[in-house]
């Protein structure tokens, strides 16, 4: 219990001190996870809506497959990306292993199914509503996808946040492909893992509190943005 109380004190002290190394770690965490969530969103949201518009017979299989990928273990993604980017692997020549870019790539793969599956859910009902209209006006596939995404934009904020949340909380994949290199690929979660292994549990939890506060802030900001968007409507 003493440690937990101490963790709050440490968290406040760390924030007050404004340590540049901590700031850099926080920024890297946010940068990597935001980039990964954004990339997954740009690829996954249209893909999810596209699936909704398809009526071919394999579609249920695809959806089941996609939903199963929601539970993709992050260490497995980390391992696959590691083997791809390894100097002995197919993409070794890019020199991306143990860099922040490798971490973005791993987290993009990790969050892509989340975005696609949740977008599918979010646009499903709109497709049921608008399908006939689309058919009557002869709207093209791209036009239909764009309309579906625009209609579901409120829910898509949540989809983005879910992807971002998975990315920022994740440690297994980035530990493997980033290598937890101090001042280069060390993020909040890998720092927490490191401090835990050094037995400094109070500091580890203190860092955890800072991370949770940050995600809370971002989630709050997204909520406000979402409300303003629906007010405008």
């Amino acid at each position: 219990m003493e440690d937990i109380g101490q963790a709050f004190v440490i968290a406040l002290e760390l924030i007050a001190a404004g340590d540049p190394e901590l700031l850099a770690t926080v920024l890297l965490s946010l940068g990597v996870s935001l980039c990964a969530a954004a990339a997954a969103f740009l690829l996954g949201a249209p893909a999810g809506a596209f699936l909704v518009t398809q009526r071919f017979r394999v579609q249920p299989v695809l959806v089941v497959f996609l939903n199963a990928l929601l539970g993709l273990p992050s260490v497995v993604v980390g391992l696959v990306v590691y083997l791809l980017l390894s100097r002995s692997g197919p993409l070794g020549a890019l020199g991306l292993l143990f860099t922040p870019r490798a971490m973005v790539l791993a987290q993009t793969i990790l969050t892509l199914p989340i975005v696609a599956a949740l977008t599918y859910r979010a646009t499903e009902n709109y497709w049921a509503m608008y399908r006939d209209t689309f058919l009557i006006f002869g709207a093209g596939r791209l036009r239909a996808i764009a309309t579906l995404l625009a209609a579901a934009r409120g829910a898509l904020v949540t989809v983005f946040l879910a992807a971002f949340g998975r990315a920022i909380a994740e440690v297994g994949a980035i530990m493997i492909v980033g290598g937890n290199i101090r001042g280069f690929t060390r993020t909040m979660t890998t720092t927490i893992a490191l401090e835990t292994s050094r037995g400094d549990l109070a500091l580890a939890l203190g860092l955890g509190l800072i991370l949770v506060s940050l995600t809370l802030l971002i989630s709050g900001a997204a909520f406000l943005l979402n409300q303003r968007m629906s007010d405008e409507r």
Partner: protein
Amino acid sequence: MSRRNLVFQLIALFLLLASPARADDSFITLASTTSTEQSGLFGFIIPLFKQASGIDVHVVAVGTGQALAVGTRGDADALLVHDRAGEDKFIAEGHGIDRRDVMFNDFVLIGPKADPAGVKGVKDAKEALRQIAAAKAAFASRGDDSGTHRMELRLWKAAGVDLAGNPAWRKETGSGMGPTLNVAASLDAYVLADRATWANFKNRQNLEIVSEGDPVLFNPYGSILVNPGLHPQVKAQAARRWHEWLTSEAGRAAIGAYKINGEQVFFLEPALAD
């Protein structure tokens, strides 16, 4: 409008991050052990090397077994590890070249203050382990194919303790030194640890050093260059500068000057035996 701007900025940021990295000789990747990283040694000596050479060192800290595996794939430029048998195999298979002794630290036997196996003051490490096994006292093992784990297995074998059937009193954590110490602290278990990690470890609870100083517990660290003949993408020149610096007067002086809470944990000669 502003929302569209935000989207473009995000795309730009992603493209920036996703564009292929330039071949970059301003840093090398060093695969090393968790014990060295967690001891804080690298935080002390790497800035000194960087000042002297302009080359930064990115340390990927894993168990010795994994560090050798990273080297085998050519994913590091140099290694600093501690498992002589594994290192020799690595060299013999052609993955590494030019192994050099860099420094030593030593292993210590950690245990609960209550000392249920009565090993306090037993300097002979094999005898201490034999007593722990006889008492079936809880023992936390790394179980992760690290240098420390390999040392522990050699000691059990030398002590004549049969680990077949994975006895319940010996718990393999399958994780690094720190997590294993955390487990030992919460179970009041004995554990073999390297002195550097122990000196830096904060969550000690009832644990203390119960046996130390047996010469078999010396732990030599070797610096190895990953063979550029086998892995053409290795930054051979920059890695060699690090390798040379580490074994130069300047490097040795830096290692010798590193202390944790006033305690020296890495030694340049195996002088602990006295």
